[in-house]
């Protein structure tokens, strides 16, 4: 035990020499704070470091290998799956000091950033040039680009613009050996070699630490419009989405609020003017003013034919903002339904084929009724991604039992409907137990890759069922 303590002391001193006294801590208060992310999982690290560059990270990882201690990378800690929670203890490597935008290369439509850049800050900077990084997570104001990359994040506009992995051109990564490697290409496309970039996007820090990223950017659309369509039947809303695609249209986003979500929003902010129906669809289209106008008309026609009971086009900026804010506030509004309860992020990211979204919504409602929980559901129907909000009194143990059962049933249903337990938040601890069911033999391939790159299993162990 004494030997163990002196070895740990030695490691601490070596790490301190790497990052400097100001950027390392093992104070109990710090360790307790870095034990959490947004998920209900908890795990206390032994040391937290805040490095400022790839060389420091390389040294940290080498030391971790030498001392066989886990390394857990962390951005803003805004993940919902426990990805940054150090379940096996070890060193948390917080990357928020690495928050520089290194290069904005407009002529090549790309930008180079450090992993700690906050998503919203990147887009605020790019907007000055008339450009944007189209991936738009709801956590934009806090999530870091490194976290977005490592969790394979996306957001509301993924229907047209895709997900993070579609925008990562090149990555600098510190491998578990401590070696710093660059993968990918500056060229707009490349058919050369294994697509390692795509392997590292969504690897959740299990294969290395991303220290630099070259991302594709796009010009900001000149015009945007929003169509709100109300349906008295969930199935009809689902069909309207399918019919929209069939009409040859790809809106930038299609969001759904079911009755529970509409009620929650109305209770949270009674001034929001939206109809109380079974389902509301929010279509966002963008592009040239003329193109947007045409697309709005097409969506209106499609929705009318699909049985919409009310259609409202947001032309003014005020109405546009109000409708988007209605969607944005659903998550927060879920707590308004009962002031004693808060949302627990479990089963919050299920994703199914688009045509199965109505069935998934009904299934969630059915599960809620079975357990007596009013589950508010909303999400990116255009990409099949739903965010059911499980809301409980966290001080009541029996509610936790119920929550775990509901979570299991919702996620199992998603898999049965041909979907996945996570569309954009990642696996972490929360969904590790579904990996085998979702991937079968392919999980063994992942494990083989993991073993090859990280033979000592120091990189974020205990995640993704690796």
């Amino acid at each position, binding site marked *: 035990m004494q030997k163990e303590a002196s070895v740990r002391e030695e490691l601490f001193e070596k790490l301190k020499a790497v990052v400097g006294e100001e950027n390392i801590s093992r104070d*109990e208060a710090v360790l*307790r*704070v*870095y034990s959490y992310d947004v998920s209900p999982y908890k795990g206390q690290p032994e040391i*937290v470091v805040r490095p400022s560059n790839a060389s420091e990270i390389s040294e940290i990882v080498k030391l971790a290998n030498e001392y066989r201690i886990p390394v857990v990378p962390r951005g*803003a*800690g805004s993940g919902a799956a426990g990805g940054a929670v150090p379940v096996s203890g070890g060193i948390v490597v917080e990357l928020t000091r690495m928050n520089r935008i290194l290069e904005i290369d407009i002529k090549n439509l790309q930008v180079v950033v450090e992993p700690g850049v906050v998503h919203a800050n990147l887009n605020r900077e790019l907007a000055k040039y008339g450009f944007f990084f189209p991936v738009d997570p709801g956590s934009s104001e806090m999530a870091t680009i490194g976290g977005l990359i490592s969790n394979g994040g996306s957001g509301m506009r993924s229907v047209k613009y895709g997900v993070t992995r579609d925008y990562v051109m090149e990555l600098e990564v510190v491998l578990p050996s401590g070696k710093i490697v660059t993968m990918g290409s500056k060229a707009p496309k490349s058919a050369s070699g294994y697509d390692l970039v795509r392997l590292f996007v969504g690897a959740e820090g299990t294969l290395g630490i991303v220290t630099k990223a070259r991302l594709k950017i796009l010009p900001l659309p000149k015009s945007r419009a929003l169509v709100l369509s109300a349906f008295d039947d969930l199935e009809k809303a689902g069909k309207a989405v399918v019919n929209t695609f069939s009409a040859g249209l790809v809106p930038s986003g299609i969001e759904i609020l079911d009755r529970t979500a509409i009620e929650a929003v109305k209770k949270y902010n009674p001034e929001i003017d939206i109809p109380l129906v079974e389902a509301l669809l929010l279509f966002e289209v963008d592009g040239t003013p003329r193109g947007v106008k045409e697309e709005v008309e097409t969506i209106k026609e499609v929705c009318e034919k699909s049985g919409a009971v009310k259609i409202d086009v947001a032309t003014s900026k005020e109405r546009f903002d109000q409708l988007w804010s209605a969607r944005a506030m659903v*998550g927060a509004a879920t*707590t308004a339904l009962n002031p004693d309860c808060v949302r627990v992020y479990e089963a919050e990211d299920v994703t199914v084929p688009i045509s199965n979204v109505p069935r998934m919504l009904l299934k969630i409602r059915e599960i809620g009724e079975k357990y007596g929980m009013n589950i508010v559901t909303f999400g990116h129907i255009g990409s099949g991604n739903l965010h059911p909000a499980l809301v409980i009194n966290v001080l009541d143990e029996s509610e936790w039992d119920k929550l775990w059962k509901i979570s299991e049933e919702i996620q199992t249903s998603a898999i049965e409907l041909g979907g996945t337990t996570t569309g954009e938040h990642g696996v972490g601890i929360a969904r590790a137990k579904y990996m085998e069911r979702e991937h079968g033999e392919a999980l063994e391939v992942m494990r083989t890759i993991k073993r090859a790159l990280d033979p000592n299993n120091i990189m974020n162990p205990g995640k993704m069922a690796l």
Partner: protein
Amino acid sequence: MNDKIIEACVPEVVKCVHCGKCRAVCPTLDVLGWDNYGSRGRMILAGEIIRNGFDPDETGLNSIFTCTTCKHCTTVCPTKAKVPEVMEMTRSILVGRKKHPDIHRVLYERVEKLGNPYDEHKDRLWWIPDFREPEEAEVMFFVGCTPTYRTVEIAKSVVKILDGLEIPWTFVRDQKCCSSPLIRTGWGSITTDHNIEKIIETAEATGADTVITSCAGCYKTIIQDYPIEDLDIRIMHITQYLAEKLEKGEIELPQKPGLRVTFHDPCHLGRHAGEYDAPRKVIESMGVDLVEMEHNRQSSWCCGAGGGVRIAFPELTEKIATKRVNEARAVDAELILSACPFCVYNLRVNSQDIPVRDIVEFIAELM
């Protein structure tokens, strides 16, 4: 006592779902970087202390006691978690365990002994020795400790304005510290009953029906921490009082056309009391060119002084204040105005090139 606080605190603590949205707006996290120095980290620590038996180490105490209670986090919080209130409650619990910055105990003892936190033995009316309470008054001036002992120009300015506008006024008799510095740091109020009693006594003696104060901290404390629901007396910040008079066309303020000024919203007047318009109405009525800083109104950036931070962690306060002054510089302001003697005092000592004035000083200088 602690059990009752814990009972009240737990439901607020669990409202924080650790989403981290507050990371972008916490002035102390912005300077110190470590998550434990931001609102989310503090809420986690409050939970650990209250629910999981954590006996905080020095870093834990510093994390809890560096919160300026600026409330910026609550305004962006999806669940509207009441972070300043949780910090005050957690601090109370820690004070009960004798774990707190020593200087906060000193403040308590000074208020208890002298009625002010500044260790001043002078009479509160030292700066206006000829004052005699009038037989009749319309308003009662609650001066506050900072204008009385540190920024006396602010106190004098209020008097000059009231006299200049021919508003019959008097002082709240025998006033003591409002207890804001004690409540924010977890020591609770020891002057509430006294001050309420004196407000009533002065009102009965002079007929005044309105208390005015130029201090955002006193204002917030009296309207939110004092049990004044049944008090038939209006409590107003002086900018609210002046804005109301301007709206009614009862007064006119001196003009300074062409001057480029910016306004720093004091947290206690803005986010805590919800008053953003009154000071702006007053400023705009003076013909100046009012420019907003990047962070304004609900998203105003704290000056770094509140919550007992300035006295316990002066270097931190200095860095936060410097950022705020830089925002004023970025919009080429020639003058920074505020409506709180504590903010004014703090920004002034941290601004090398741009002058900082309280709105009342600005008005009085032109009268």
